[in-house]
């Protein structure tokens, strides 16, 4: 940065430098956790967290897609014209999602069955387009892949924890293994649709309390629309 200050009259804009790997990992897992801090991708967070393996499976599938799509989009970032940016990103993301879908069908059919249409719906998960737009279109392929992995794992951690709580309290099991004593009758509500909202609501209240109300604000996933100014990179990366 200091070299830029010495030549104040340059017309070439200084290239934004990618954050350090450690910062990327911390941002993805904790500081900018896509589910808990940014409130992105709520649909799968609510829908598949009825059992721990489902939460883990969808989280990892999303992380895999995100890592690969970020890598490829970053590689092509100077080739793709600005006008067809969004459709190009969507097509690349849809390609990787379809690959994952067929791999799951072939090698993990039970997981594929229980996740159902939520696997192809990874395409519409705002996290993917948001990361492509905010990170991969600006920085190098390896930083972008790391960002995808970190964000994906942050998403996985959130999904897995919510699913663990819902499965243990709602069904008395964890990965299908009985966990609760016999006198405890599981609160079935937690694995029913209303329980999804309830469990996520409780998580959000705790996060709100811990961060003094700075989570997601009032807008939730609507912010992830690429044409929305809330998504400006400086408000996402590196804080205020």
């Amino acid at each position: 940065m200091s070299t830029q200050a010495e030549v104040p009259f340059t017309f070439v804009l200084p290239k934004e430098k990618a954050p350090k790997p450690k910062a990327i990992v911390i941002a993805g897992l904790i500081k900018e956790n896509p589910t808990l801090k940014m409130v992105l991708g709520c649909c799968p967070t609510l829908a598949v967290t009825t059992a721990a393996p489902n939460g883990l499976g969808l989280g990892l599938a999303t992380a895999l897609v995100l890592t690969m799509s970020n890598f490829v989009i970053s590689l092509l970032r100077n080739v793709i014209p600005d006008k067809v940016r969004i459709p190009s990103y969507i097509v690349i993301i849809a390609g990787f999602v379809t690959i994952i879908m067929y791999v799951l069908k072939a090698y993990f059919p039970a997981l594929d069955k229980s996740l159902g249409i939520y696997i192809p719906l990874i395409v519409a998960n705002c996290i993917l387009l948001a990361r492509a737009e905010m990170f991969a279109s600006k920085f190098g392929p390896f930083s972008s892949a790391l960002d995808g992995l970190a964000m994906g794992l942050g998403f996985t951690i959130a999904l897995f924890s919510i699913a663990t709580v819902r499965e243990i309290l709602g069904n008395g099991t964890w990965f299908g293994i009985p966990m609760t004593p016999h006198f405890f009758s599981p609160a079935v509500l937690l694995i029913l649709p209303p329980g999804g909202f309830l469990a996520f609501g409780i998580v959000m209240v705790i996060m709100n309390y811990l961060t003094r109300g700075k989570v997601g604000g009032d807008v939730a996933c609507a912010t992830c629309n690429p044409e929305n100014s809330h998504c400006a990179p400086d408000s996402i990366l590196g804080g205020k």
Partner: protein
Amino acid sequence: MREILKPALVLLAICVAIAAVLAVVYQVTKPIIAKRAADDLKAAMHEVLPQAESFQDLFFDEADAKAKNFDVSSTQLQLVKAIPVAAQGGLQMLQISAGKNQTGAVVGYVFTSLSAGYAPDGVHVTVGIDTTGKITGVRIGDQNETPGLGSKVLALHGPYLKQFNNLTPQSSNGTYLTLVKNKPASAPPEQIDAVTGATFTSRAVWRAVEASVEAAHAEMSAGGQS
């Protein structure tokens, strides 16, 4: 013109490249997926009719065989002797297979049906019945019943499904099994006790088993290969 053409060409190139990759992935995984589905189906049939060594699909008619991707021109097409009513009172019989032992003699039948339950998707039920009319196993396939309530009925080794095992129900006025609520201890085993709070799911499974038993008797008395 250039400003429109170039972006369009880049987007088209990306689409073509991705489609090509997907075509390869699809070709590689397709046989694996098909084999796994066939293996799973065979394992499910073997589970409800353990004494059978191999299974032969019976078809309702030629159109049914065609719909199930069976090579109609081959001479092996085996038809169901007594055709069950297709969709009667919320039940749809999807597939009937004959289980055979090592010498090729029919030892029983496996019935797969879709029965209307509480959730709109229905419950897939696979029932095995041997040639003496004994129920050798009941297994639940795809379903979307209420977790924690309906799923109690469907638990693999749960008390509800156990009621059917090894029953050889006899016909009384055309019905073999009946569904009752709060069954007294002295009642005969042909009365199936519905699970409290999950009546619809209980009825879905009972309806499928009852239809399978009826179809098995019809098939055997029509001189099916027993």
